[in-house]
């Protein structure tokens, strides 16, 4: 069952007196929906995603997943990174089981692992070493590892950017399909407009200096989506226009109109300062298990 995500008035600075890298972010994502975040490099997309994962805490504001304030990472909302980060000393099967072992969910582990491998089409690669697999296969293993813990939210930080075009396209369709089947909420950070349109139910365009939501576009196309579909091409043009506007600079007027163009299911009516009241006091950053 997918989870709802509330972004409540997030403002973030990397140092006490530093500039805001994210400012007054307010957004809601309904359970099972897929939201793509696009924007220029340095607009804070990945930073925001790390906050959704609990790998980083905002200076002000908070994230709530299913009403629970995110203060640390949790297997129910886990992240897929640009690099799959598979452990080379484990085989594929053991890598898929890793999340279950870290979370102590070891009951029916082998059955679950085989099920996930079958889901991502790697049943015959269970005994292989990750370094013997292609980039696409490695990302499939990472996907199986994420899915094995039965997450309600999967956060995707450009996980297909290092792959060739064909593999990338296949994985985009597969991940979206699996997430829809299992009703998992997806949040995707990408630089690729086609990827955003292929996977997102809505696309949020972010501006930079400071990072802010500039506009939200609903993508009402049937899945699986094809870039050669004329409707897809029209949406791409519209998104490109919005993206260009976001690059031209931060416009308070656009920020203000966000609520009105926002996803109807999000129902954002409250301003950032009111949403801030929904946040409990949190630490500014969570420590790494080993201080590196």
């Amino acid at each position: 069952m997918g989870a709802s995500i509330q972004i409540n008035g997030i403002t973030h600075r990397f140092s006490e007196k530093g500039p805001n890298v994210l400012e007054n972010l307010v957004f809601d994502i309904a359970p099972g929906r897929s939201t793509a975040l696009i924007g220029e490099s340095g607009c804070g997309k990945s930073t925001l995603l790390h906050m959704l994962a609990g790998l980083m805490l905002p200076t002000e504001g908070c994230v709530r997943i299913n009403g629970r304030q995110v203060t640390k990472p949790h297997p129910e909302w886990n992240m897929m990174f640009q690099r799959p980060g598979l452990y080379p000393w484990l085989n594929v099967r053991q890598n898929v089981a890793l999340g279950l072992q870290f979370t102590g969910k070891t009951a029916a582990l082998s059955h679950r692992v085989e099920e996930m491998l079958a889901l991502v089409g790697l049943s015959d690669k269970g005994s292989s070493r990750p370094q013997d697999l292609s980039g696409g296969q490695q990302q499939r293993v990472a996907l199986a590892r994420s899915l094995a813990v039965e997450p309600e939210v999967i956060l995707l930080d450009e996980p297909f950017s290092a792959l060739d075009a064909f593999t990338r396209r296949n994985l985009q369709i597969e991940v979206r399909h699996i997430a829809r089947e299992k009703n998992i909420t997806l949040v995707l950070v990408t630089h690729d407009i086609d990827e955003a349109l292929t996977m997102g139910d809505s696309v949020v365009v972010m501006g930079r200096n400071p990072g802010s939501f500039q506009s939200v576009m609903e993508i009402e196309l049937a899945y699986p989506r094809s870039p050669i579909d004329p409707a897809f091409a029209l949406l791409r043009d519209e998104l490109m226009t919005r993206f260009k506007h976001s690059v031209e600079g931060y416009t308070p007027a656009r920020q203000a109109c966000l609520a009105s163009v926002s996803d109807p299911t999000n129902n954002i009516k409250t301003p950032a300062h009111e949403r801030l009241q929904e946040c409990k006091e949190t630490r500014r950053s969570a420590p790494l298990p080993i201080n590196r």
Partner: protein
Amino acid sequence: MSNGISSGAVAIRISTMPWSPLRQQLFGKVAYPLMGLAILLVCWWFGGYLIASNPATQSFAGFAPAQALPEAWRLIVSGTLMGTVLPSLYRIGMGLLWASLVAVPIGILVGASPVLRQITGFPFQLLRMVSPLAWMPIAVLAFATWDGAIIFLIFMAALWPILFSTAFAVQRIDPMYFKVARNFGASPLACLRRLVLPAVAPDILAGFRLALGIAWVVLVPAEYLGVTSGLGYAINDARDILAYDLLAALVLIIGIIGYLLDSIIVVLIRYLGWQNSA
């Protein structure tokens, strides 16, 4: 014209034709090592010949292979070798065990904490540079038994290679692996068990191999200390009774055992080391 081209092509084919895998294996694993061994034997034989043919050194003729090899065989078949080797293996085993138990946890902490690395950098480098045998007087004072003192010397010899290789290995772990572990809410203990220890295991074994080499070298002089057993004691005794054939046989046996122990570690590294599977 066409003949010229075809003969050239044949010449290229012959010159670039790869060796068959079997032939490569035969030379790489059997013929070349045997060749090296033969060269060593010839050098040994020639050295023995020079010693035996010089009236000034004639009394050391027992060093030659013709005398030493039968003596080595006599040691093996009479069973005296086991009585000599086992105490040495016990001491080296205990020294390495203690060194591993101390070096691995400290190495992990030093590798994981930049502050600890700064604090320990100078003292550890300073202590590392002290010859293990320089601790001999302190070992004799500090330990009630000779065995304890020898084990301590081996410990001092083996400690640093294991500690430094562990610390460097922890520093080199890909931060992405920690990110993945955190992402699943892994506890520090789970991180240690499922991430840090397996990630550094090949380097710990490589450090252990280095430590074994140093410890094996230190063992012989360390066993000159008081004890009445072990390879070091046997060599010292052979020198005292002028039994140079026995001395040469023991040197040969020390080399062979050292080589075998190293080979065991190499097999372990190959078996446990994930870096080889890439």
